[in-house]
């Protein structure tokens, strides 16, 4: 079952190698490039293609970011989930370093790119992908010092996401609770699927090694503590935590405890699949009056409480393509069946409101220096994949 990548390639939009790192010497750049250019040529757009492709004894896995493909090659039965996710992390790291990952930025920074590829993966095994810590000892030209004397402790520490010795004059934490509503409504008005995906997005500006504890109105927790859960507690279907959260502790007593990374990160995400009333209801009637004219009547209705306001509401109607044939003196449009009725898509934001009713009850921050930190909490709900099919 063990297996690792043979090489990692960064390729341009045509599939030509920009930079590559050979980890095992059993897949050449030539072989990979020949495969991938041919593959792209034949398939046209990569969207329709499986991200895992087998060719000539080699498995290629790739993702696309802007005009760059990131691809691993392997001859073993490697962990596909891990390698594909690793490629996404590589994108994150490059973005942290170069602001944007694209062909240009790779060329402009190829020395650092090589250094990073050497550090993030060894012998095809993912090693370390914390951009912030990496940038403490792999620096771009402008920030480069002579020799850093040792790797940051965090690289090998149990707390691998935070360095020691961080200092802020003012210790603050910002916590945004962001809920996205995904909904799919059939053309007959029936709600096929609805779910809420929430994220607790944190920005920490804290000195030292702070211990944090977060309390939510989680029904399981409150019940375990023997508190009343009337009306206020919520059930979360699935919770995912940032690696800083102690999972075993959470499993034990539902306490969310952690030493946070410095700066922005997603502390947790959660999912709720209880049926929710669509916050904004849209109906559309499409009438075809003549061969060259059609009318779409759209009715939109908000279904949330008055004290909330939706902002940035956009209702995106499917595009209709009409082919017109010009033959003077009259103009007609061919009768065409719209190829596929794309759904109506809605975007909106509702501040100070969550569908789930999740509440941050407390965020305790304890650091040995004993400073007081200010937590700021905000709530917002927005449309995720909000689709209403039309007749």
């Amino acid at each position, binding site marked *: 079952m*063990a297996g690792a990548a043979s090489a990692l390639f960064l390729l341009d939009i045509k599939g030509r190698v920009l930079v590559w790192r050979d980890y095992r010497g059993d897949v050449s750049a030539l072989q990979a490039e020949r495969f991938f250019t041919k593959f792209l040529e034949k398939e046209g757009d990569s969207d329709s293609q499986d991200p895992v492709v087998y060719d000539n004894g080699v498995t290629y896995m790739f993702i696309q970011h802007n005009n760059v493909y990131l691809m691993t090659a392997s001859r073993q039965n490697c962990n596909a989930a891990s390698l594909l996710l690793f490629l996404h992390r590589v994108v994150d790291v490059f973005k942290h370093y170069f602001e944007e990952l694209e062909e240009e930025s790779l060329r402009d920074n190829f020395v650092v790119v*090589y250094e990073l590829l050497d550090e993030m993966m060894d012998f095809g*095994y993912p090693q370390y992908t914390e951009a912030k810590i990496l940038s403490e000892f792999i620096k771009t030209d402008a920030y480069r010092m002579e020799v850093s004397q040792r*790797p940051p402790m965090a690289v090998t520490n149990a707390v691998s996401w935070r360095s020691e010795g961080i200092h802020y004059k003012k210790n603050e934490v910002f916590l945004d609770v962001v809920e996205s509503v995904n909904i799919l409504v059939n053309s007959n008005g029936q709600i096929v699927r609805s779910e809420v995906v929430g994220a607790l997005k944190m920005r920490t500006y804290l000195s030292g090694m702070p211990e944090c504890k977060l309390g939510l109105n989680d029904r399981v927790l409150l019940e375990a503590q023997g508190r009343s859960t009337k009306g206020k507690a919520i059930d979360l279907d699935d919770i995912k935590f940032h690696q800083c959260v102690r999972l075993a502790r959470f499993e034990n007593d539902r306490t969310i405890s952690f030493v946070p990374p410095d700066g922005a990160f997603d502390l947790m995400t959660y999912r709720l699949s209880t049926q929710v009333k669509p916050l904004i209801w849209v109906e559309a009637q499409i009438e075809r009056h003549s061969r060259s004219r059609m009318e779409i009547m759209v009715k939109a209705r908000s279904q949330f409480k008055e004290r909330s306001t939706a902002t940035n509401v956009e209702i995106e109607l499917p595009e209709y393509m009409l082919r017109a044939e010009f033959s003077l003196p009259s103009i007609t449009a061919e009768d065409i069946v719209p190829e596929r009725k794309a759904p109506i898509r809605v975007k909106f934001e509702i501040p100070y409101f969550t569908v789930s009713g999740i509440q941050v009850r407390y965020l305790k921050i304890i650091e040995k220096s004993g400073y007081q930190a200010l937590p700021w909490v905000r709530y917002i709900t927005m449309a995720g994949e909000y*689709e209403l099919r039309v007749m």
Partner: protein
Amino acid sequence: MSGHDSKYFSTTKKGEIPELKEELNSQYKDKRKDAVKKVIAAMTVGKDVSSLFTDVLNCMQTENLELKKLVYLYLINYAKSQPDLAILAVNTFVKDTQDPNPLIRALAVRTMGCIRVDKITEYLCDPLQRCLKDDDPYVRKTAAICVAKLYDINAELVEDRGFLDALKDLISDNNPMVVANAVAALAEIQDNSSTPIFEITSHTLSKLLTALNECTEWGQVFILDALSKYKAADAREAENIVERVTPRLQHANCAVVLSAVKMILQQMELITSPDVVRNLCKKMAPPLVTLLSAEPEIQYVALRNINLIVQRRPTILAHEIKVFFCKYNDPIYVKMEKLEIMIKLASDRNIDQVLLEFKEYATEVDVDFVRKAVRAIGRCAIKLERAAERCISVLLELIKIKVNYVVQEAIIVIKDIFRRYPNTYESIIATLCESLDTLDEPEAKASMIWIIGEYAERIDNADELLESFLESFPEEPAQVQLQLLTATVVLNNATVETDNPDLRDRAYIYWRLLSTDPEAAKDVVLAEKPVISDDSNQFDSSLLDELLANIATLSSVYHKPPETFVTRVRTLQKTEEEEFPEGSEGGYSETSSAHAADNGASPPPTSSTPPYATTKQPAPAAPVPDLLDLMGLDGDGGGDNAVVSVDQPVKTAGPPLPVLLPAASGQGLEISAQMVRRDGQIFYSLMFENNTQTPLDGFMIQFNKNTFGLAAGGPLQVPQVQPGTSERTLLPMVLFQNIAPGPPNSLLQVAVKNNQQPVWYFNDRISLLVLFTEDGRMERTAFLETWKSLPDSNEVSRDIPGIVINNVDATIEQLAPSNMFFIAKRKNANQDVLYLSAKIPRGIPFLIELTAVIGVPGLKCAIKTPNPEMAPLFFEALETVLKS
């Protein structure tokens, strides 16, 4: 913090190398550093800068870490091409492994492990030993992986120098990252070794479970993957393990979640308490669902895995079918996989909603997806008898939309529904007939003709309808012609002109039948067809076990066992010096797509095979008409698969093969080949040895018609063969492609050509040994019944002299690997009698009785089979095994 490295890519064209050489030797540090960057830039764009080797090497001794890294990078790339000069780097390397800075120590040992040059490797051992015990965990974690690198280059060295023990010690290291890397290294070494190296005891288990809480996300994946091989002693231990792994399901990293799921599923097999199992299923469902919110590529991997998981544990996601409904913007590969899972989860309870979805998808834009959606409706009809009628009515609604490919696909699936539920839904035939004119795809036409023929009695104008097809008969593809022929026979209307021998033969047979005995004809043509069955749970239990043990890995994505695609060839020096004992180490390239049924189990897709090309395979690259002509073969029908061309090289190694074309007959080209069976598939193992003065390339292969219709199942992949060298390849073979008429014989005529030489012909023999299938074991009772049911005329026996059986069990063991399965034995006076069974494709069984006196030469073999004319081939095969 963007850089400006792009300037290094532009150098003056003229005299680039000399210019760089000069700069590399500059007395100024900065200039040297810039020069190395230019060299690396040149290397990056693929220019050969190996001639600057010594000059770059001169820059290696530097305090500047960045420059050092660049020089190291250069060495990784070019050391192999300059092994004699690479030795010059050794001193600096060794010195660096003792540098006070742990970054430099780790960098040196990491880089040395990447340089596959013997002379460097020799010098790696001492520093590696030191680094494995370094004070700094960063160095130790790097050294741990380096042991795996060294093992890959020279396994013996690792064993002799005690690195394995040192590595095992690191499992108890106090640093979690070191532990994780040691586990990854050990797991890989174990994978490549036949002796037990990394055995997880309950003691290591508990250590690793503890480390799990502390190491990085990637390290957690290494540990979970390694631990999933651990077999708990009993249900209690299994429960304990599961308890410590379940918190991982809450990890934000999807790979951690999937590996945790794998481990839980493995342990669940041992857990007996239904409550615990139910509880675990409940716990795993939400994380599995959440995987569908990940990046699309991860979703794809997750979906391929969920497909397997629901086959073993259907209850896990039984209530979650809605999360698999396709979103409009899902990439097509995600939609395709969701569809598969929807079919698997479809039940009487949710079918109405599912059908509504399928209908929605059938109006999408992507043709492949639409077709798959239509097929999905058909598969649900076949799976759920009570919903069949609703499925049909949805199909009829879709036909009314009159989108050409939807109609055709619908007709195809309706034919299957008719076969599954005969005489139930003929009332819709009239509606189907309205679409007759729009059909232009062979499969759809053939399906429609089948329906007309089958229900001819109930269609007033069946003859007219068929006649309209007959008008275009000569232009139709064979598939349609055959179906048309069968259908017309049903209507007593068989007079045809054609060039296709298969077609003509069948026509003549029908015609004769009709003219002599119309009743018999009816029996043949209207005979019962095998019933179509539900294929939504398609894997047999043992394969499913294996795939589930490989969750998250490529094996679970391909739905194939690892050995079918892993081609990791151990280091070059090994393959050259040693013969692989069973050829088991030599990977092979799995390229066959000919047997890729459209049942959701997509094989490793090759670059030439889009995975969702439904049942049609793309035409193989560049046909070779001259070869065809020379062989005098029909180039149509199944023959398509037999014409193949060279694409890209693949290296394999294996045991010596019999020489079939001696160099003397092949103008210096020697070809050795043998048919082999591996993992239920037949391969032609070939070796090409070039004794000419010129490189040979463009190899192609063609097989003449033969008894079993063996033909190439993919392109012959041979790289250019340099003079004085040889190349091996494994060619996947398919059966029943171009069957030679006449009594069975073992002759296989092969033609091989290349771009430099004329076509070479040689003969090989097909041994039944490669044809005996893995499912040839018969139950005792079935054996007796079959034996009785076959007439005595089907029994053939022969004495095989010169064979001595000294031990019955040894003989049984000798036969088992060739798929001849032992059933029973008895004593008859001083004789031992053995009963065995074997089976060749198309389900032809051989019932075998071996009689011998222990220790006395001479063996009597009697067989009974529906195909007694195969007997000589069978005896030949048996003799081969027993004499080997």
